[in-house]
């Protein structure tokens, strides 16, 4: 072991990473677990008994489950057929459609909720219109709003995965099916879709978990409809009747549900994944009839219109005058003036926090990925692989509560500082950054590193001169996505923020949920946030092209 420590600096790096991550990721969760089994009269499972007998908690659990499942089913219904026709047929503007779907997958998470309330809320623009046509529409606010919005913000997750699985199927498998007499529809049902099933299942899992853990959407469009993230937030922050123990207990239940779903997904995907010869050949898309092409294009167009309705609504209403919570048709810059008069500090603050967290994500994620992919240590590699994936199953709200409990005493007093926000962002997107680096690393053949070792480069030198430049495009892509998700983070931010460390998302959230407030300032800030998301994305796509950088797809 001594000689290994000397010749392989990665052993020491792995140990440090493992200890550090265990402390930052696992340790706060232990605090939540401890809180959930404590009571004024001593430790026990009393809180869990209460959770599973008290209607309030049971109802929220059930609501969370059914709304997420319904949203997932709806999202799959939008995503899978669209992915299939785009993968298999020649469609005009295909590249444009693909990048727009990718773009919509990184919308700020509460953008949809805000916009659909503006459109279809009790006094919404479309609601009034519908009523004036004699359609008795009241409001989208409530569970149906949650399902509708979650479906539209999570369908791109399914779409991108299914599209990718479909285009990477070896075309000779489908040709073989047709050669034995199956027509296009039979081939789709008996060959293409079964082979894409792991992609479909993984996409559905991602959609389900995103909906289940989402806090912003149900908070804004739920209209008080209790789901677990909102309940946990309430239990944690409410000044009257708030209960940290029940918030912790509910948190553990959420983590347990996420874990169970993850295990189920892994089990299903493992059973449905077939070892296949990957072929460098890509199938040539078929040409549909003129009518077929028109219908497919129209359909894709419709999906995109609905996906981007929120962006448009927010952009337009940010320039309209609001009075008493109702948008008017008067053009104004008042919303932006009010935004500027409140404070513009949240804009650089968001960039700073998300930027620093992303930098850490990329550095730590790459190191972790390297240990997992290349250094097949008997204990350290699988251990790191597990620890780095834990944040995937921790909803943002729960992560926030864990950090507050774990780091609220000296010498580790982070609660109330900017560091705790940065830490939360870092932890949340670490799995993402690690996975991005991992897939980039799988593209680097081990012999390229061995070649460097054989001409005299040390392991760290090899990493710097050979590995790093080769995985850079993949890491830039992963880092960009992590940054975009960090800058729009809300679930843990609402738990952790305190003045003066206010982010753009906090401004939007406060203005969109405060009683009696209108959406004017929220819309204006959302426009700023959208610009902060899409401009960097555009720049990376534009200047990364040709170096293999392709964000999203």
């Amino acid at each position, binding site marked *: 072991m001594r000689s290994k420590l000397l010749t392989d600096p990665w052993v020491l790096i792995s140990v440090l990473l493992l200890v550090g991550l265990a402390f930052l990721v696992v340790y706060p969760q232990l605090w939540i677990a401890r809180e959930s089994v404590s009571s004024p009269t001593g430790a026990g499972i009393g809180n869990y008994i209460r959770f599973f007998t008290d209607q309030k908690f049971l109802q929220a659990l059930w609501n969370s489950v059914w709304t997420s499942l319904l949203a997932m089913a709806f999202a799959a219904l939008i995503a899978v057929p669209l992915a299939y026709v785009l993968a298999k047929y020649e469609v005009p503007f295909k590249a444009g459609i693909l990048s727009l779907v990718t773009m919509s997958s990184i919308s700020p998470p509460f953008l949809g909720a805000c916009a659909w309330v503006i459109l279809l809320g009790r006094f919404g623009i479309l609601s009034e219109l519908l009523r004036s046509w004699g359609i008795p529409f009241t409001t989208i606010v409530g569970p149906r709003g949650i399902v509708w919005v979650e479906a539209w913000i999570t369908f791109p997750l399914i779409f991108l995965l299914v599209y990718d699985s479909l285009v990477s199927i070896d075309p000779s498998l489908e040709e073989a099916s047709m050669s034995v007499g199956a027509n296009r529809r039979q081939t789709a049902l008996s060959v293409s879709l079964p082979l894409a099933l792991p992609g479909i299942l993984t996409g559905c899992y991602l959609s389900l978990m995103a909906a289940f853990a989402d806090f912003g959407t149900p908070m804004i469009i739920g209209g008080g409809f209790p789901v677990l993230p909102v309940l946990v937030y309430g239990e944690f922050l409410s000044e009257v009747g708030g209960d940290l123990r029940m918030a912790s207990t509910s948190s553990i239940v959420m983590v347990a549900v996420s874990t169970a779903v993850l295990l189920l997904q892994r089990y299903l995907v493992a059973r449905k994944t077939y070892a296949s010869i990957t072929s460098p050949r890509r199938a040539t898309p078929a040409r549909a009839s003129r009518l077929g092409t028109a219908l497919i294009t129209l359909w894709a167009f419709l999906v995109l219109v609905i996906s981007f309705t929120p962006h448009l609504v927010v952009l337009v209403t940010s320039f309209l005058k609001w009075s008493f919570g109702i948008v008017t048709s008067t053009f104004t810059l008042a919303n932006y003036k009010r935004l500027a008069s409140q404070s513009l500090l949240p804009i650089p603050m968001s960039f700073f926090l998300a930027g620093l967290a992303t930098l850490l994500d990329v550095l730590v994620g790459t190191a972790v990925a390297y240990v997992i992919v290349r250094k097949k240590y008997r204990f350290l590699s699988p251990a790191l692989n597990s620890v780095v994936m834990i944040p995937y199953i921790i909803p943002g709200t729960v992560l926030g509560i864990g950090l507050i409990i774990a780091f609220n005493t000296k010498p580790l007093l982070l609660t109330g500082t900017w560091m705790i926000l940065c830490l939360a962002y870092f932890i949340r997107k670490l799995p993402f950054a690690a996975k991005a680096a991992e897939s980039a690393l799988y593209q680097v053949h081990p012999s390229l590193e061995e070649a460097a*070792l054989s001409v005299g480069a040390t392991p760290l030198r090899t990493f710097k001169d050979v590995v790093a430049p080769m995985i850079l495009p993949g890491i830039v892509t992963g880092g960009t996505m992590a940054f975009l998700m960090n800058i729009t983070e809300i679930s843990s931010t609402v738990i952790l923020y305190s003045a003066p460390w206010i982010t753009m998302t906090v401004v939007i959230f406060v203005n969109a949920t405060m009683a009696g407030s209108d959406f004017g300032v929220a819309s204006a800030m959302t426009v700023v946030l959208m610009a902060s998301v899409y401009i960097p994305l555009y720049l990376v796509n534009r200047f990364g092209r040709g170096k293999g950088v392709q964000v999203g797809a």
Partner: protein
Amino acid sequence: MSKGISQNAVTPVDVTLTGIKKVFNDTVALDDVNLQIRPGEFFTLLGPSGCGKTTLLRIIAGFEKPSAGTVMVGDKRVDDIPPWDRNIGFVFQNYALWPHMTVFSNVAYGLRLRRLDRRQIEEQVEWALGLVGLSGMSKRVPGQLSGGQQQRVAIARALVLRPSVLLLDEPLSNLDAKLRIETRKEIRSLQRELGITALYVTHDQEEALEISDRIAVMNKGQVEQVGTPEEIYDSPLTRFVAEFVGLTSTVHGVITERGTLRAGDLDLYTFPSSFMASGLAAVGEEVIAAIRPEKIRVSEDASALPLKGKVEEVTYLGSSRRVKVQIASRSAATPPLTLLAAYSGTVKPGAEVSVEIEALSLVR
């Protein structure tokens, strides 16, 4: 390809492997391998895939650590020296050129690590690229080169550092047949002129026979036989070597008092009296004989030669034919025997022929 090599020749060293063992999880990849490679020798590790030959090469390079045993390069024990301090040249099957560097940078990288000044680096790279016939290609990136050119760059990258030993891991297996033959001749003459000790891994027996000074035939993690190409081909020690290297007919038989090899109810071959006198085989001993096709004479006159047979199959090979002959036993009760023979005349399946075995080797 050879200008200015003499003043750049390296001092050849020997490589000694003692008791090398390698266990991956529960499978034994190498089991007590002992080899002595002489200075300046072109030594080939030959064997089927999974026999451990690549693992052995990677142990010499330091990419793998042996579970037991020692590796000596020259008089230095290198087991505990990491690969980057071993000064060993390694050429990979997939070339392993760094795609983000030019040809020049690929070759220069090791020199830069050694902090040579710019002029020296340029001179050395020029020398190495000239050696492999790629002068003037230095500004290209690997993606713009053909497979054969890429492998030459990889060889230049290894040679530019004047390694004490050059290790080549199936360097030609990704090239097409014609280029493979050309390139192996070039590698061989390059090695000869530089006088460098080379270890070469391949599963292609023809390649091994053509370019090696000596060959170690490996099977299931063990060395079956070490010898010159002639020794390996003409006197295989084991049935595995006989069958893996070249074509062979294997026959089980007994040595009779009359000094013949008897299989079934036939006397196939009469051993020379010197062999019987040497005591290498005893009368009554059960043996396995390996017979090369070109050591079997075939005649279309069915009674010209001592063994009678019938042609079963004829394979046309361009310059000659290979015929499978079923030798008739005296009684129907003994199962017939088939032999592979080389024959230059034309003969059709079903023809009655006679054959004679001119030489054979007894194998384990």
